[in-house]
Protein backbone atom coordinates (compact mmCIF):
# COMPACT_ATOMS: atom_id res chain seq x y z
CA UNK A 1 0.00 0.00 0.00
CA UNK A 2 2.69 2.50 1.05
CA UNK A 3 4.54 1.61 -2.11
CA UNK A 4 1.62 2.74 -4.26
CA UNK A 5 1.15 6.14 -2.61
CA UNK A 6 2.58 8.19 -5.51
CA UNK A 7 -0.01 6.87 -7.95
CA UNK A 8 -2.84 6.93 -5.39
CA UNK A 9 -2.11 10.60 -4.87
CA UNK A 10 -3.17 11.24 -8.45
CA UNK A 11 -5.86 8.66 -9.13
CA UNK A 12 -7.90 9.05 -5.96
CA UNK A 13 -9.24 12.49 -6.92
CA UNK A 14 -9.22 11.58 -10.62
CA UNK A 15 -11.39 8.48 -10.16
CA UNK A 16 -13.63 10.16 -7.60
CA UNK A 17 -14.53 12.94 -10.05
CA UNK A 18 -16.86 10.95 -12.37
CA UNK A 19 -18.40 9.29 -9.33
CA UNK A 20 -19.23 12.66 -7.79
CA UNK A 21 -20.88 13.70 -11.07
CA UNK A 22 -23.48 10.98 -10.51
CA UNK A 23 -24.44 12.12 -7.02
CA UNK A 24 -27.58 14.14 -6.48
CA UNK A 25 -28.67 16.32 -3.63
CA UNK A 26 -27.04 19.29 -2.00
CA UNK A 27 -24.67 17.66 0.40
CA UNK A 28 -23.74 14.24 -0.99
CA UNK A 29 -21.34 15.62 -3.59
CA UNK A 30 -19.78 17.96 -1.06
CA UNK A 31 -19.36 15.20 1.52
CA UNK A 32 -17.62 12.86 -0.92
CA UNK A 33 -15.39 15.68 -2.16
CA UNK A 34 -14.41 16.54 1.39
CA UNK A 35 -13.57 12.90 2.05
CA UNK A 36 -11.51 12.60 -1.11
CA UNK A 37 -9.59 15.84 -0.64
CA UNK A 38 -8.97 14.85 2.99
CA UNK A 39 -7.63 11.51 1.83
CA UNK A 40 -5.39 13.24 -0.75
CA UNK A 41 -4.06 15.51 1.97
CA UNK A 42 -3.29 12.50 4.17
CA UNK A 43 -1.49 10.78 1.30
CA UNK A 44 0.62 13.84 0.56
CA UNK A 45 1.58 14.15 4.24
CA UNK A 46 2.62 10.48 4.26
CA UNK A 47 4.68 11.05 1.12
CA UNK A 48 6.29 14.12 2.66
CA UNK A 49 7.21 12.19 5.81
CA UNK A 50 8.52 9.28 3.78
CA UNK A 51 10.75 11.49 1.63
CA UNK A 52 12.07 13.65 4.47
CA UNK A 53 12.69 10.65 6.72
CA UNK A 54 14.67 8.69 4.16
CA UNK A 55 16.10 11.69 2.32
CA UNK A 56 15.58 9.71 -0.86
CA UNK A 57 13.52 10.14 -3.99
CA UNK A 58 10.52 7.87 -4.45
CA UNK A 59 10.17 6.62 -8.00
CA UNK A 60 7.02 4.84 -9.10
CA UNK A 61 7.12 3.00 -12.42
CA UNK A 62 3.71 3.02 -14.05
CA UNK A 63 2.77 -0.46 -15.24
CA UNK A 64 6.15 -1.72 -14.08
CA UNK A 65 7.99 -0.06 -16.99
CA UNK A 66 11.11 1.73 -15.80
CA UNK A 67 12.30 5.06 -17.19
CA UNK A 68 13.09 6.11 -19.86
CA UNK A 69 10.80 3.65 -21.65
CA UNK A 70 7.91 3.91 -19.22
CA UNK A 71 6.38 6.87 -17.48
CA UNK A 72 7.56 7.39 -13.92
CA UNK A 73 6.11 9.38 -11.06
CA UNK A 74 8.81 11.04 -9.02
CA UNK A 75 8.37 12.24 -5.45
CA UNK A 76 11.49 14.10 -4.43
CA UNK A 77 12.16 16.80 -1.87
CA UNK A 78 10.62 19.45 -4.16
CA UNK A 79 7.41 17.68 -5.12
CA UNK A 80 6.95 16.36 -1.57
CA UNK A 81 7.01 19.98 -0.40
CA UNK A 82 4.53 21.28 -2.99
CA UNK A 83 2.01 18.40 -2.83
CA UNK A 84 0.81 19.10 0.75
CA UNK A 85 0.28 22.75 -0.24
CA UNK A 86 -2.08 21.80 -3.06
CA UNK A 87 -3.96 19.03 -1.27
CA UNK A 88 -4.02 20.87 2.06
CA UNK A 89 -5.44 24.05 0.55
CA UNK A 90 -7.80 21.90 -1.51
CA UNK A 91 -9.07 20.21 1.65
CA UNK A 92 -9.52 23.37 3.72
CA UNK A 93 -11.20 25.27 0.89
CA UNK A 94 -13.52 22.31 0.30
CA UNK A 95 -14.56 22.57 3.96
CA UNK A 96 -15.59 26.15 3.34
CA UNK A 97 -17.05 25.40 -0.09
CA UNK A 98 -20.31 23.96 1.24
CA UNK A 99 -21.50 27.33 2.43
CA UNK A 100 -20.00 29.40 -0.38
CA UNK A 101 -21.16 27.12 -3.18
CA UNK A 102 -24.72 26.78 -1.98
CA UNK A 103 -24.91 30.57 -1.75
CA UNK A 104 -23.51 31.21 -5.21
CA UNK A 105 -24.33 28.26 -7.46
CA UNK A 106 -27.65 26.75 -8.48
CA UNK A 107 -28.35 23.50 -6.62
CA UNK A 108 -28.62 21.38 -9.77
CA UNK A 109 -25.05 22.28 -10.74
CA UNK A 110 -23.45 21.26 -7.44
CA UNK A 111 -22.48 17.74 -8.44
CA UNK A 112 -20.85 19.00 -11.64
CA UNK A 113 -19.16 21.80 -9.75
CA UNK A 114 -17.48 19.32 -7.40
CA UNK A 115 -16.57 17.08 -10.35
CA UNK A 116 -14.68 19.94 -12.00
CA UNK A 117 -13.25 20.82 -8.58
CA UNK A 118 -11.76 17.35 -8.12
CA UNK A 119 -10.50 17.23 -11.72
CA UNK A 120 -8.66 20.51 -11.38
CA UNK A 121 -7.07 19.26 -8.15
CA UNK A 122 -6.12 15.95 -9.79
CA UNK A 123 -4.57 17.83 -12.70
CA UNK A 124 -2.51 20.02 -10.41
CA UNK A 125 -1.36 17.06 -8.34
CA UNK A 126 -0.44 15.21 -11.53
CA UNK A 127 1.76 18.03 -12.78
CA UNK A 128 3.74 17.95 -9.57
CA UNK A 129 4.02 14.16 -9.36
CA UNK A 130 4.93 13.14 -12.87
CA UNK A 131 8.46 12.75 -14.17
CA UNK A 132 7.42 12.87 -17.82
CA UNK A 133 7.36 16.15 -19.75
CA UNK A 134 4.39 15.29 -21.95
CA UNK A 135 2.44 14.04 -18.94
CA UNK A 136 2.87 17.51 -17.48
CA UNK A 137 1.08 18.94 -20.53
CA UNK A 138 -1.81 16.48 -20.24
CA UNK A 139 -2.28 17.17 -16.52
CA UNK A 140 -1.92 20.88 -17.16
CA UNK A 141 -4.82 20.70 -19.60
CA UNK A 142 -6.91 18.55 -17.26
CA UNK A 143 -6.55 21.11 -14.50
CA UNK A 144 -6.96 24.10 -16.83
CA UNK A 145 -10.05 22.86 -18.68
CA UNK A 146 -11.89 22.20 -15.45
CA UNK A 147 -10.66 25.53 -14.11
CA UNK A 148 -12.21 27.35 -17.11
CA UNK A 149 -15.53 25.66 -16.35
CA UNK A 150 -15.24 26.53 -12.65
CA UNK A 151 -14.52 30.19 -13.37
CA UNK A 152 -17.44 30.34 -15.81
CA UNK A 153 -19.75 29.06 -13.05
CA UNK A 154 -19.44 32.50 -11.48
CA UNK A 155 -21.91 33.59 -14.18
CA UNK A 156 -24.85 32.78 -11.89
CA UNK A 157 -23.79 35.77 -9.82
CA UNK A 158 -22.03 37.98 -12.29
CA UNK A 159 -22.17 37.44 -16.02
CA UNK A 160 -18.75 38.99 -16.46
CA UNK A 161 -17.40 35.61 -15.36
CA UNK A 162 -18.10 34.29 -18.88
CA UNK A 163 -15.77 36.56 -20.89
CA UNK A 164 -13.25 36.24 -18.06
CA UNK A 165 -13.34 32.46 -18.43
CA UNK A 166 -13.13 32.71 -22.21
CA UNK A 167 -10.05 34.92 -22.13
CA UNK A 168 -8.52 32.61 -19.58
CA UNK A 169 -9.21 29.70 -21.93
CA UNK A 170 -7.64 31.39 -24.96
CA UNK A 171 -4.50 32.53 -23.15
CA UNK A 172 -4.23 29.30 -21.16
CA UNK A 173 -4.41 27.26 -24.36
CA UNK A 174 -1.85 29.45 -26.10
CA UNK A 175 0.44 29.00 -23.11
CA UNK A 176 0.01 25.23 -23.05
CA UNK A 177 0.53 25.02 -26.82
CA UNK A 178 3.76 27.03 -26.57
CA UNK A 179 4.92 24.52 -23.98
CA UNK A 180 4.15 21.66 -26.38
CA UNK A 181 6.02 23.35 -29.25
CA UNK A 182 9.11 23.67 -27.07
CA UNK A 183 8.73 20.09 -25.95
CA UNK A 184 8.49 18.93 -29.59
CA UNK A 185 11.80 20.63 -30.35
CA UNK A 186 13.42 18.98 -27.34
CA UNK A 187 12.07 15.60 -28.39
CA UNK A 188 13.50 16.10 -31.89
CA UNK A 189 16.92 16.75 -30.38
CA UNK A 190 16.97 14.05 -27.75
CA UNK A 191 14.32 11.44 -28.49
CA UNK A 192 13.12 11.32 -24.91
CA UNK A 193 10.42 12.90 -22.78
CA UNK A 194 11.56 11.78 -19.35
CA UNK A 195 12.66 14.87 -17.43
CA UNK A 196 15.79 13.31 -15.98
CA UNK A 197 16.73 11.67 -19.26
CA UNK A 198 16.20 14.96 -21.10
CA UNK A 199 18.70 16.64 -18.81
CA UNK A 200 21.33 13.97 -19.46
CA UNK A 201 20.90 13.94 -23.22
CA UNK A 202 20.67 17.71 -23.61
CA UNK A 203 24.31 17.96 -22.56
CA UNK A 204 25.32 16.73 -26.05
CA UNK A 205 23.33 19.30 -27.97
CA UNK A 206 23.54 22.17 -25.51
CA UNK A 207 24.90 24.81 -27.86
CA UNK A 208 22.48 24.33 -30.76
CA UNK A 209 20.02 27.04 -31.60
CA UNK A 210 17.12 24.61 -31.37
CA UNK A 211 17.69 24.15 -27.63
CA UNK A 212 17.46 27.88 -27.08
CA UNK A 213 14.32 28.06 -29.19
CA UNK A 214 12.81 25.18 -27.21
CA UNK A 215 13.65 26.90 -23.93
CA UNK A 216 12.14 30.17 -25.14
CA UNK A 217 8.89 28.48 -26.15
CA UNK A 218 8.58 26.50 -22.92
CA UNK A 219 9.45 29.47 -20.71
CA UNK A 220 7.02 31.77 -22.52
CA UNK A 221 4.22 29.22 -22.31
CA UNK A 222 4.79 28.75 -18.59
CA UNK A 223 5.08 32.52 -17.99
CA UNK A 224 1.59 32.80 -19.44
CA UNK A 225 0.27 30.06 -17.14
CA UNK A 226 2.01 31.57 -14.10
CA UNK A 227 0.75 35.06 -15.03
CA UNK A 228 4.17 36.63 -14.74
CA UNK A 229 4.03 40.36 -15.45
CA UNK A 230 3.28 41.48 -18.24
CA UNK A 231 1.43 38.27 -19.21
CA UNK A 232 -0.98 38.52 -16.28
CA UNK A 233 -4.04 40.15 -17.83
CA UNK A 234 -6.19 37.02 -17.76
CA UNK A 235 -5.66 36.50 -14.04
CA UNK A 236 -7.42 39.46 -12.46
CA UNK A 237 -10.85 39.05 -14.16
CA UNK A 238 -10.69 35.25 -13.89
CA UNK A 239 -10.03 35.33 -10.13
CA UNK A 240 -12.37 38.17 -9.35
CA UNK A 241 -15.49 36.96 -11.19
CA UNK A 242 -15.09 33.26 -10.35
CA UNK A 243 -17.23 31.83 -7.52
CA UNK A 244 -15.63 32.67 -4.15
CA UNK A 245 -14.55 29.10 -3.41
CA UNK A 246 -12.93 28.82 -6.85
CA UNK A 247 -11.07 32.11 -6.37
CA UNK A 248 -9.67 30.81 -3.10
CA UNK A 249 -8.58 27.47 -4.58
CA UNK A 250 -7.09 28.91 -7.75
CA UNK A 251 -5.35 31.90 -6.21
CA UNK A 252 -3.74 29.63 -3.64
CA UNK A 253 -2.69 26.75 -5.89
CA UNK A 254 -3.04 27.11 -9.67
CA UNK A 255 -0.25 29.55 -10.41
CA UNK A 256 1.93 27.88 -7.79
CA UNK A 257 1.83 24.62 -9.70
CA UNK A 258 2.95 26.41 -12.85
CA UNK A 259 5.80 27.99 -10.87
CA UNK A 260 6.79 24.50 -9.77
CA UNK A 261 6.73 23.24 -13.38
CA UNK A 262 8.89 26.21 -14.43
CA UNK A 263 11.42 25.35 -11.71
CA UNK A 264 11.36 21.68 -12.74
CA UNK A 265 12.00 22.45 -16.41
CA UNK A 266 14.39 25.35 -15.91
CA UNK A 267 16.64 23.69 -13.37
CA UNK A 268 15.78 20.01 -13.72
CA UNK A 269 15.94 19.80 -17.52
CA UNK A 270 18.12 22.67 -18.72
CA UNK A 271 20.13 23.10 -15.52
CA UNK A 272 21.26 26.29 -13.82
CA UNK A 273 24.57 26.32 -15.71
CA UNK A 274 22.95 26.12 -19.16
CA UNK A 275 23.75 29.36 -20.95
CA UNK A 276 20.14 30.15 -21.85
CA UNK A 277 19.21 29.94 -18.20
CA UNK A 278 22.23 31.61 -16.63
CA UNK A 279 22.51 34.50 -19.10
CA UNK A 280 18.93 34.81 -20.29
CA UNK A 281 16.09 33.43 -18.25
CA UNK A 282 17.57 34.30 -14.84
CA UNK A 283 18.00 37.99 -15.61
CA UNK A 284 14.65 38.12 -17.38
CA UNK A 285 12.90 36.67 -14.32
CA UNK A 286 14.61 39.19 -12.03
CA UNK A 287 13.50 42.09 -14.23
CA UNK A 288 9.94 40.89 -14.79
CA UNK A 289 9.66 39.87 -11.14
CA UNK A 290 10.47 43.28 -9.72
CA UNK A 291 8.38 45.03 -12.39
CA UNK A 292 5.46 42.74 -11.50
CA UNK A 293 5.96 43.37 -7.78
CA UNK A 294 5.55 47.11 -8.33
CA UNK A 295 2.84 46.91 -11.01
CA UNK A 296 0.73 44.50 -8.94
CA UNK A 297 1.12 46.44 -5.71
CA UNK A 298 0.34 49.79 -7.31
CA UNK A 299 -2.69 48.37 -9.14
CA UNK A 300 -3.89 46.83 -5.87
CA UNK A 301 -3.66 50.21 -4.15
CA UNK A 302 -5.96 51.71 -6.79
CA UNK A 303 -8.59 48.93 -6.62
CA UNK A 304 -11.77 49.31 -4.60
CA UNK A 305 -13.10 45.77 -5.14
CA UNK A 306 -11.54 43.37 -2.63
CA UNK A 307 -11.34 40.36 -4.94
CA UNK A 308 -9.68 42.40 -7.67
CA UNK A 309 -7.40 43.98 -5.08
CA UNK A 310 -6.14 40.63 -3.84
CA UNK A 311 -5.83 39.30 -7.39
CA UNK A 312 -3.58 42.27 -8.23
CA UNK A 313 -1.57 41.62 -5.11
CA UNK A 314 -1.11 38.04 -6.35
CA UNK A 315 0.69 39.48 -9.40
CA UNK A 316 3.08 41.19 -7.02
CA UNK A 317 3.61 38.08 -4.91
CA UNK A 318 4.25 35.99 -8.04
CA UNK A 319 6.82 38.63 -8.90
CA UNK A 320 8.70 37.86 -5.65
CA UNK A 321 8.71 34.16 -6.52
CA UNK A 322 10.05 35.00 -9.98
CA UNK A 323 12.85 37.02 -8.35
CA UNK A 324 13.69 34.09 -6.09
CA UNK A 325 13.98 31.77 -9.08
CA UNK A 326 15.88 34.35 -11.12
CA UNK A 327 18.70 34.71 -8.58
CA UNK A 328 19.82 31.23 -9.69
CA UNK A 329 21.30 30.27 -6.34
CA UNK A 330 20.11 27.57 -3.91
CA UNK A 331 19.23 30.28 -1.40
CA UNK A 332 17.11 32.15 -3.95
CA UNK A 333 15.31 29.05 -5.08
CA UNK A 334 14.64 28.08 -1.46
CA UNK A 335 13.13 31.54 -0.93
CA UNK A 336 10.91 30.97 -3.96
CA UNK A 337 9.72 27.63 -2.53
CA UNK A 338 9.09 29.25 0.86
CA UNK A 339 7.09 32.06 -0.67
CA UNK A 340 5.16 29.62 -2.83
CA UNK A 341 4.16 27.72 0.32
CA UNK A 342 3.40 30.77 2.46
CA UNK A 343 1.59 32.74 -0.18
CA UNK A 344 -0.75 29.81 -0.81
CA UNK A 345 -1.79 29.92 2.87
CA UNK A 346 -2.30 33.68 2.93
CA UNK A 347 -4.18 34.01 -0.33
CA UNK A 348 -6.35 30.99 0.42
CA UNK A 349 -7.36 32.58 3.73
CA UNK A 350 -7.90 36.02 2.22
CA UNK A 351 -10.10 34.85 -0.64
CA UNK A 352 -12.13 32.64 1.73
CA UNK A 353 -12.72 35.57 4.05
CA UNK A 354 -13.66 37.87 1.17
CA UNK A 355 -15.95 35.10 -0.07
CA UNK A 356 -17.87 35.19 3.22
CA UNK A 357 -18.83 38.79 2.46
CA UNK A 358 -19.42 38.12 -1.23
CA UNK A 359 -21.68 35.15 -0.54
CA UNK A 360 -24.13 37.43 1.33
CA UNK A 361 -25.11 39.29 -1.78
CA UNK A 362 -23.20 41.84 -3.77
CA UNK A 363 -19.49 42.13 -4.21
CA UNK A 364 -17.09 42.83 -1.39
CA UNK A 365 -15.93 46.37 -2.03
CA UNK A 366 -14.35 48.99 0.20
CA UNK A 367 -17.81 50.59 0.28
CA UNK A 368 -19.70 47.44 1.29
CA UNK A 369 -17.30 46.60 4.16
CA UNK A 370 -17.53 50.04 5.76
CA UNK A 371 -17.85 49.51 9.48
CA UNK A 372 -17.96 45.74 9.02
CA UNK A 373 -15.15 45.27 11.55
CA UNK A 374 -17.65 45.22 14.40
CA UNK A 375 -20.36 43.28 12.58
CA UNK A 376 -18.23 40.37 11.40
CA UNK A 377 -15.09 40.67 13.54
CA UNK A 378 -13.70 37.18 12.87
CA UNK A 379 -13.90 37.56 9.09
CA UNK A 380 -12.42 41.05 9.03
CA UNK A 381 -9.65 40.10 11.47
CA UNK A 382 -8.77 37.19 9.19
CA UNK A 383 -8.48 39.66 6.30
CA UNK A 384 -6.35 41.97 8.46
CA UNK A 385 -3.95 39.19 9.49
CA UNK A 386 -3.78 37.86 5.93
CA UNK A 387 -2.96 41.38 4.76
CA UNK A 388 -0.22 41.73 7.38
CA UNK A 389 1.26 38.45 6.16
CA UNK A 390 1.23 39.79 2.59
CA UNK A 391 3.23 42.82 3.70
CA UNK A 392 5.65 40.54 5.52
CA UNK A 393 5.16 41.60 9.12
CA UNK A 394 7.27 39.61 11.62
CA UNK A 395 5.60 36.56 13.24
CA UNK A 396 3.75 35.82 10.00
CA UNK A 397 4.92 33.36 7.37
CA UNK A 398 5.18 36.23 4.88
CA UNK A 399 8.03 37.65 6.95
CA UNK A 400 10.02 34.41 6.72
CA UNK A 401 9.86 34.19 2.95
CA UNK A 402 10.63 37.90 2.43
CA UNK A 403 13.53 37.58 4.87
CA UNK A 404 15.07 34.68 2.97
CA UNK A 405 14.42 36.38 -0.36
CA UNK A 406 16.18 39.59 0.67
CA UNK A 407 19.00 37.57 2.21
CA UNK A 408 19.46 35.57 -1.00
CA UNK A 409 19.52 38.82 -3.00
CA UNK A 410 22.15 40.34 -0.71
CA UNK A 411 24.27 37.18 -0.84
CA UNK A 412 24.33 37.54 -4.62
CA UNK A 413 25.23 41.25 -4.33
CA UNK A 414 21.91 42.36 -5.79
CA UNK A 415 21.56 45.24 -3.34
CA UNK A 416 19.40 47.33 -5.60
CA UNK A 417 16.85 44.54 -6.03
CA UNK A 418 16.87 43.84 -2.29
CA UNK A 419 16.04 47.48 -1.63
CA UNK A 420 13.30 47.49 -4.28
CA UNK A 421 11.80 44.30 -2.84
CA UNK A 422 11.71 45.96 0.54
CA UNK A 423 10.10 49.12 -0.84
CA UNK A 424 7.41 47.26 -2.81
CA UNK A 425 6.58 45.14 0.27
CA UNK A 426 6.21 48.28 2.31
CA UNK A 427 3.90 49.72 -0.34
CA UNK A 428 1.56 46.78 0.28
CA UNK A 429 0.82 48.51 3.58
CA UNK A 430 -1.17 51.06 1.60
CA UNK A 431 -3.79 48.64 0.36
CA UNK A 432 -4.05 46.79 3.63
CA UNK A 433 -4.53 50.10 5.39
CA UNK A 434 -7.36 51.02 3.00
CA UNK A 435 -9.21 47.91 4.17
CA UNK A 436 -8.53 48.61 7.84
CA UNK A 437 -9.72 52.17 7.42
CA UNK A 438 -12.96 51.08 5.75
CA UNK A 439 -13.73 48.23 8.12
CA UNK A 440 -12.84 49.71 11.48
CA UNK A 441 -12.50 53.47 11.27
CA UNK A 442 -15.66 54.21 9.33
CA UNK A 443 -19.11 53.77 10.85
CA UNK A 444 -21.47 51.24 9.29
CA UNK A 445 -23.87 53.19 7.03
CA UNK A 446 -27.42 52.99 8.39
CA UNK A 447 -29.02 51.47 5.31
CA UNK A 448 -26.23 48.90 4.79
CA UNK A 449 -27.30 45.24 4.95
CA UNK A 450 -26.40 43.37 8.12
CA UNK A 451 -23.52 40.93 7.55
CA UNK A 452 -23.45 37.64 9.42
CA UNK A 453 -20.86 35.05 10.28
CA UNK A 454 -20.66 31.79 12.20
CA UNK A 455 -17.68 29.63 13.21
CA UNK A 456 -18.53 27.11 10.50
CA UNK A 457 -18.09 29.82 7.89
CA UNK A 458 -14.98 31.55 9.14
CA UNK A 459 -13.38 28.40 10.56
CA UNK A 460 -11.59 27.29 7.38
CA UNK A 461 -10.19 30.79 6.75
CA UNK A 462 -8.87 30.84 10.31
CA UNK A 463 -7.24 27.42 9.91
CA UNK A 464 -5.14 28.95 7.13
CA UNK A 465 -4.49 32.17 9.10
CA UNK A 466 -3.31 30.15 12.11
CA UNK A 467 -1.11 28.11 9.77
CA UNK A 468 0.36 31.38 8.51
CA UNK A 469 1.31 32.28 12.09
CA UNK A 470 2.39 28.72 12.84
CA UNK A 471 4.84 28.68 9.94
CA UNK A 472 5.88 32.23 10.75
CA UNK A 473 6.85 31.42 14.33
CA UNK A 474 8.06 27.82 13.97
CA UNK A 475 9.59 28.15 10.52
CA UNK A 476 12.51 25.75 11.09
CA UNK A 477 11.28 22.51 9.47
CA UNK A 478 9.71 24.31 6.52
CA UNK A 479 12.88 26.31 5.81
CA UNK A 480 14.87 23.09 5.99
CA UNK A 481 12.55 21.39 3.50
CA UNK A 482 12.72 24.38 1.16
CA UNK A 483 16.50 24.32 1.18
CA UNK A 484 16.51 20.55 0.63
CA UNK A 485 14.20 21.05 -2.35
CA UNK A 486 16.37 23.82 -3.77
CA UNK A 487 19.56 21.84 -3.24
CA UNK A 488 18.09 19.10 -5.42
CA UNK A 489 18.49 21.28 -8.49
CA UNK A 490 21.98 22.50 -7.60
CA UNK A 491 23.45 19.31 -6.21
CA UNK A 492 24.83 16.65 -8.58
CA UNK A 493 23.44 18.57 -11.54
CA UNK A 494 20.46 16.32 -12.14
Amino acid at each position, binding site marked *: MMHHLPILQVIVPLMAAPFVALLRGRDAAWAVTTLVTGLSFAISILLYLQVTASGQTLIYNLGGWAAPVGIVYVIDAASALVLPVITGIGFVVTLAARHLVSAEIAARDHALFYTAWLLTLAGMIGQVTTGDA*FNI*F*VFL*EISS*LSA*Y*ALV*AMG*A*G*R*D*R*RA*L*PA*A*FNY*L*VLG*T*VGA*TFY*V*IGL*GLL*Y*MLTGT*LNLEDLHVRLADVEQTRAVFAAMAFIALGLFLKIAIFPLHFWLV*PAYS*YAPSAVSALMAATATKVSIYVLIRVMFGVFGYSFMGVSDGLGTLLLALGIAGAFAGTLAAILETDLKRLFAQSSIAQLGYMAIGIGILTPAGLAAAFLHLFNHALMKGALFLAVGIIGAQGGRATLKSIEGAGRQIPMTMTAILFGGLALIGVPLTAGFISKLYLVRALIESDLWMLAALTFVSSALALAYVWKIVEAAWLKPRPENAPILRETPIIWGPAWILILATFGFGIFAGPLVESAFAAAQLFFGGGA
Partner: protein
Amino acid sequence: MSSLLGQWNYFLVIILMMLGFYAVIARGNLVKKMVGLNIFQTSVFLLYISIGKVTGGTAPILTGDPSTVYSNPLPHVLILTAIVVGIATTAVGYALIIRIQESFGSIEDDEINAVMEAPDKGAAS
Protein backbone atom coordinates in the same frame (compact mmCIF):
# COMPACT_ATOMS: atom_id res chain seq x y z
CA MET B 1 18.48 25.90 -51.15
CA SER B 2 17.86 22.19 -51.17
CA SER B 3 18.09 22.13 -47.40
CA LEU B 4 15.42 24.80 -47.28
CA LEU B 5 13.15 22.89 -49.62
CA GLY B 6 13.90 19.70 -47.76
CA GLN B 7 12.42 21.29 -44.67
CA TRP B 8 9.23 22.45 -46.33
CA ASN B 9 7.14 20.78 -43.65
CA TYR B 10 8.57 23.11 -41.00
CA PHE B 11 7.83 26.16 -43.11
CA LEU B 12 4.27 24.98 -43.52
CA VAL B 13 4.02 24.52 -39.76
CA ILE B 14 5.41 27.99 -39.06
CA ILE B 15 3.07 29.65 -41.59
CA LEU B 16 0.03 27.91 -40.13
CA MET B 17 1.18 28.71 -36.60
CA MET B 18 1.50 32.41 -37.33
CA LEU B 19 -1.82 32.54 -39.21
CA GLY B 20 -3.60 30.95 -36.27
CA PHE B 21 -1.82 33.04 -33.68
CA TYR B 22 -2.60 36.23 -35.62
CA ALA B 23 -6.29 35.35 -35.69
CA VAL B 24 -6.29 34.73 -31.94
CA ILE B 25 -4.74 38.11 -31.22
CA ALA B 26 -6.23 40.34 -33.90
CA ARG B 27 -9.80 39.11 -34.35
CA GLY B 28 -12.49 40.61 -32.19
CA ASN B 29 -15.08 37.96 -32.95
CA LEU B 30 -14.91 35.18 -30.38
CA VAL B 31 -15.74 32.42 -32.88
CA LYS B 32 -12.92 33.62 -35.13
CA LYS B 33 -10.62 33.61 -32.12
CA MET B 34 -11.53 29.95 -31.50
CA VAL B 35 -10.89 29.11 -35.16
CA GLY B 36 -7.51 30.80 -34.92
CA LEU B 37 -6.75 28.85 -31.78
CA ASN B 38 -7.62 25.61 -33.57
CA ILE B 39 -5.34 26.43 -36.51
CA PHE B 40 -2.58 27.30 -34.05
CA GLN B 41 -2.97 23.96 -32.27
CA THR B 42 -3.19 22.04 -35.53
CA SER B 43 0.13 23.46 -36.68
CA VAL B 44 1.71 21.94 -33.60
CA PHE B 45 0.08 18.59 -34.37
CA LEU B 46 1.68 18.74 -37.83
CA LEU B 47 5.04 19.59 -36.29
CA TYR B 48 4.94 16.49 -34.12
CA ILE B 49 3.62 14.24 -36.87
CA SER B 50 6.35 15.26 -39.28
CA ILE B 51 8.98 14.63 -36.59
CA GLY B 52 7.96 11.00 -36.48
CA LYS B 53 8.29 10.46 -40.23
CA VAL B 54 11.16 8.23 -41.28
CA THR B 55 11.99 8.28 -45.00
CA GLY B 56 10.89 5.02 -46.56
CA GLY B 57 9.41 3.94 -43.26
CA THR B 58 6.24 1.93 -42.98
CA ALA B 59 3.62 1.57 -40.30
CA PRO B 60 5.16 0.58 -36.95
CA ILE B 61 3.93 -3.01 -36.76
CA LEU B 62 6.10 -5.79 -35.35
CA THR B 63 7.01 -8.14 -38.19
CA GLY B 64 9.85 -10.04 -36.59
CA ASP B 65 12.14 -8.81 -39.35
CA PRO B 66 14.79 -6.52 -37.83
CA SER B 67 15.48 -4.81 -41.16
CA THR B 68 11.99 -3.29 -41.32
CA VAL B 69 12.16 0.50 -41.39
CA TYR B 70 9.20 2.06 -39.63
CA SER B 71 8.08 5.54 -38.62
CA ASN B 72 8.47 6.61 -35.01
CA PRO B 73 5.06 5.95 -33.45
CA LEU B 74 5.65 7.91 -30.25
CA PRO B 75 5.04 11.45 -31.56
CA HIS B 76 1.94 10.19 -33.33
CA VAL B 77 0.56 8.75 -30.12
CA LEU B 78 1.39 11.97 -28.27
CA ILE B 79 -0.56 13.95 -30.84
CA LEU B 80 -3.49 11.60 -30.51
CA THR B 81 -3.63 12.77 -26.90
CA ALA B 82 -3.13 16.38 -27.91
CA ILE B 83 -5.99 16.15 -30.42
CA VAL B 84 -8.29 14.93 -27.67
CA VAL B 85 -7.18 17.83 -25.49
CA GLY B 86 -7.74 20.18 -28.42
CA ILE B 87 -11.28 18.92 -28.96
CA ALA B 88 -12.07 19.33 -25.27
CA THR B 89 -10.71 22.88 -25.36
CA THR B 90 -12.76 23.69 -28.45
CA ALA B 91 -15.91 22.28 -26.86
CA VAL B 92 -15.45 24.30 -23.67
CA GLY B 93 -14.63 27.40 -25.72
CA TYR B 94 -17.74 27.17 -27.89
CA ALA B 95 -19.91 26.38 -24.87
CA LEU B 96 -18.65 29.58 -23.29
CA ILE B 97 -19.31 31.53 -26.49
CA ILE B 98 -22.92 30.33 -26.50
CA ARG B 99 -23.36 31.44 -22.90
CA ILE B 100 -21.73 34.79 -23.69
CA GLN B 101 -24.10 35.31 -26.63
CA GLU B 102 -27.05 34.45 -24.37
CA SER B 103 -26.21 36.90 -21.62
CA PHE B 104 -24.42 39.71 -23.48
CA GLY B 105 -26.26 39.53 -26.80
CA SER B 106 -22.95 39.78 -28.64
CA ILE B 107 -19.79 37.82 -29.36
CA GLU B 108 -17.72 40.85 -30.36
CA ASP B 109 -14.80 41.62 -28.08
CA ASP B 110 -15.30 45.39 -27.99
CA GLU B 111 -19.02 45.21 -27.23
CA ILE B 112 -18.40 42.74 -24.41
CA ASN B 113 -15.54 44.84 -23.03
CA ALA B 114 -17.83 47.87 -22.91
CA VAL B 115 -20.05 45.88 -20.52
CA MET B 116 -17.07 44.46 -18.61
CA GLU B 117 -15.70 47.90 -17.81
CA ALA B 118 -18.99 49.56 -16.98
CA PRO B 119 -19.69 49.31 -13.25
CA ASP B 120 -22.85 47.64 -11.95
CA LYS B 121 -23.74 46.06 -15.28
CA GLY B 122 -22.39 42.67 -14.33
CA ALA B 123 -25.33 41.55 -12.24
CA ALA B 124 -26.93 38.42 -13.63
CA SER B 125 -29.75 39.26 -15.98
